């Protein structure tokens, strides 16, 4: 691929914090790297955890600068190489991004990221790490995306956040981006011995059977260990890491397959 006309943009979101959005973004990025799929992580979370783990060198132009600038194609100026090596680059976050989430002047610009990504080259997959709120940053991410991947933990609060995220996807799809479609719901940090977790997974399946991705991501300490060392979990050598890597590879297959089954409103000229 590596042609701007075929870049697949996936937003990873939940409207609850701490459910593992960044872990899923990084897991997918690592899986894509293994496949030789040039991937760009756009870190729109002001906390910048994805940026921290990807450990880019000198960052001179951040996602905040991209959204402030807003010119067509300006994302290319912000693409920075990462310590993960060839195949995974990042548009870095910074805390000042938070100011873009709720503009003081009330002026909205949902299409700024979409315009900024115009003409993106040598990238096949863009993963957007969203903040846990439906402010301007998440709206920009969804308006620029082909697919939305919702992340949840098997807990009561997180399920509510997932439901709200899916509702937001529907709203943005109808309001700003007719191509946007939900790619699925990732259940993260599942503990099979927990009655509560099993109950919540069953509840999710009852509500969104077609969307819940199988298998779920089990709770594994290796995920945090890999992140703490700024390496992809795919590079870790342990049974847990191999298990999680296989699951992320499955998710990547699903995302790529979802992109290939576009709906009728996606026919015609591509937007970028």
């Amino acid at each position, binding site marked *: 691929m590596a042609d701007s006309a075929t870049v697949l943009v996936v937003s990873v979101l939940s409207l609850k914090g701490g459910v593992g959005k960044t872990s899923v973004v990084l897991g997918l990025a690592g899986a894509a790297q293994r496949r030789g799929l040039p991937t760009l992580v756009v870190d729109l979370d002001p906390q910048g955890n994805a940026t921290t783990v990807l450990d880019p060198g000198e960052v001179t132009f951040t996602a905040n600068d991209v959204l402030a600038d807003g010119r067509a194609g300006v994302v290319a100026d912000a693409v920075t190489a990462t310590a993960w090596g060839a195949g995974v680059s990042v548009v870095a976050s910074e805390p000042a991004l938070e100011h873009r989430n709720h503009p003081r002047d009330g002026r909205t610009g949902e299409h700024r990221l979409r315009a900024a990504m115009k003409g993106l080259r040598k990238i096949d997959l863009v993963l957007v790490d969203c903040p846990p709120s*439906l402010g301007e940053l998440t709206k920009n991410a969804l308006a620029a995306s082909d697919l939305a991947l919702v992340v949840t933990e098997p807990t009561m609060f997180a399920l*509510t956040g997932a439901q709200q995220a899916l*509702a*937001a996807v529907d709203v*943005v799809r109808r309001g*700003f981006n007719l191509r946007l479609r939900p790619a699925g719901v990732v259940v993260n940090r599942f503990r099979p011995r927990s009655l509560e977790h099993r109950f919540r997974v069953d*509840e999710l399946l009852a509500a969104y059977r077609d969307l819940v991705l199988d298998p779920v991501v089990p709770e594994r300490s290796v995920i945090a260990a890999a992140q703490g060392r700024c390496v992809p979990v795919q590079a870790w050598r342990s049974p847990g890491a191999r298990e999680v890597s296989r699951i992320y590879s499955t998710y990547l297959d699903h995302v790529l397959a979802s992109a290939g089954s576009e709906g009728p409103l996606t026919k015609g000229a591509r937007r970028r």
Partner: protein
Amino acid sequence: MTTTPPPRPALRRADDGTVHPAAAHLSSLAVDVSDTSARAGRGKGKKKDKDRSEETVDITVTLPKQVRKRLRRKAETYGWTAEEAASHVLRVWADD
């Protein structure tokens, strides 16, 4: 308390098939997406969306050339074709 109470549901399904938070105070939380929030309030079932996306139909409309030109120009500012924009506008209007 001598027994552990069962987990309470986090989600409920409405009569129209849409999924909502089970907690009443959360059900009233609107997904606020600027001027589209009013449209969002009218939730559409997943099945309906799926059905719509699986069926395509053609509709022919007559427009003055000048209007088409303006439509094309405006659509391009969003990165869309005029046909996509027209389809989008019609669908949103029909949804309402």
